[in-house]
């Protein structure tokens, strides 16, 4: 792999991890697996940057796709047959963050993550890409592989819904 690509990946690594955490619904350990698999795809040239979009949007698209693959695998493992096999293989996964990590997540962060989990997936994704990753709406559309019009709609609806979830009044009602 080229040195230049490795340097870009290194600079993007913390944000890529944050994006992987979001794609895995806040599960840090699964996000680490997803990111590792995405790096392996890159190393084995199963994913190559064609240059039609910026490296960051392309890379985030790869991570998103890898997380979806991981989700499908997880759903299979949680099926009846998968659970039966896990009984024999002894492969158990605890989705909760470790106690040390739970302490580090303050109340507001947890509240935001919980509110994002209540939003439809696309609304939540576009809000993360815009506010957390500082991408434009068109860049977010490239990552999510949907049209700019759809992204704009998800963005506006998502913002309104997130605000209503974060305000104390709506929190008290729930």
């Amino acid at each position, binding site marked *: *792999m080229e040195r230049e690509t*490795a340097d870009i*990946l*290194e600079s993007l*690594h*913390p*944000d890529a*991890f*944050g994006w992987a*955490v979001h794609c895995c619904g806040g599960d*840090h350990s699964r996000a*680490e697996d997803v*990111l*590792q*698999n995405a*790096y*392996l*795809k*890159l*190393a*084995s040239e*199963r994913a190559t940057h064609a240059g039609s979009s910026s490296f960051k949007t392309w890379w985030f698209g790869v991570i998103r796709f890898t997380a979806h693959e991981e989700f499908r*695998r997880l759903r*299979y493992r949680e099926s009846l*047959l*998968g659970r*039966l*096999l896990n009984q024999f293989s002894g492969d158990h996964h605890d989705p909760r963050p470790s106690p040390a*990590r739970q302490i*580090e*997540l*303050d109340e*507001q*962060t947890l509240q*935001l*993550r919980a509110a994002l989990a209540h939003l439809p997936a696309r609304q939540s994704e576009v*809000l*993360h890409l815009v*506010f*957390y990753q500082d991408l434009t709406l068109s860049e977010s559309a490239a990552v999510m592989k949907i049209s700019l019009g759809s992204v704009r709609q998800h963005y506006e609806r998502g*913002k309104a819904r*997130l*605000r209503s979830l*974060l305000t104390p009044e709506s929190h008290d009602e729930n």
Partner: protein
Amino acid sequence: MMKTEPDGDLRTRFAALRSVDHELAPAWNPQVLQVAPKAASWSLPYWLPITATACLLLGFTFTKHDSARPSENLSAMLPEFFATQGEPLFASLIAAPSTPSDSLLPAHLTIYLP
């Protein structure tokens, strides 16, 4: 007049989340880009456990069916259909002139052999 940034409230919250995630992010390891991918990305084929389970179920079903069979000699348990009987199967005109149902027949139909 001070200009406020649009969506500043959401940006602040996301920035806090971002800093927490950055603290928790695993350290960058350049070796992940050089490891052999095939061994790490191997996963169990989806059809394999399904086929294995189906074979196990079939095997279990047939084993159970076999164990339900009586272990003793079958011919010893069945009634004797073709065993030799003490009397001849068909009435003989010579040896047995009368039968138990003869009394029910009218007298003129009853055959008496000399």
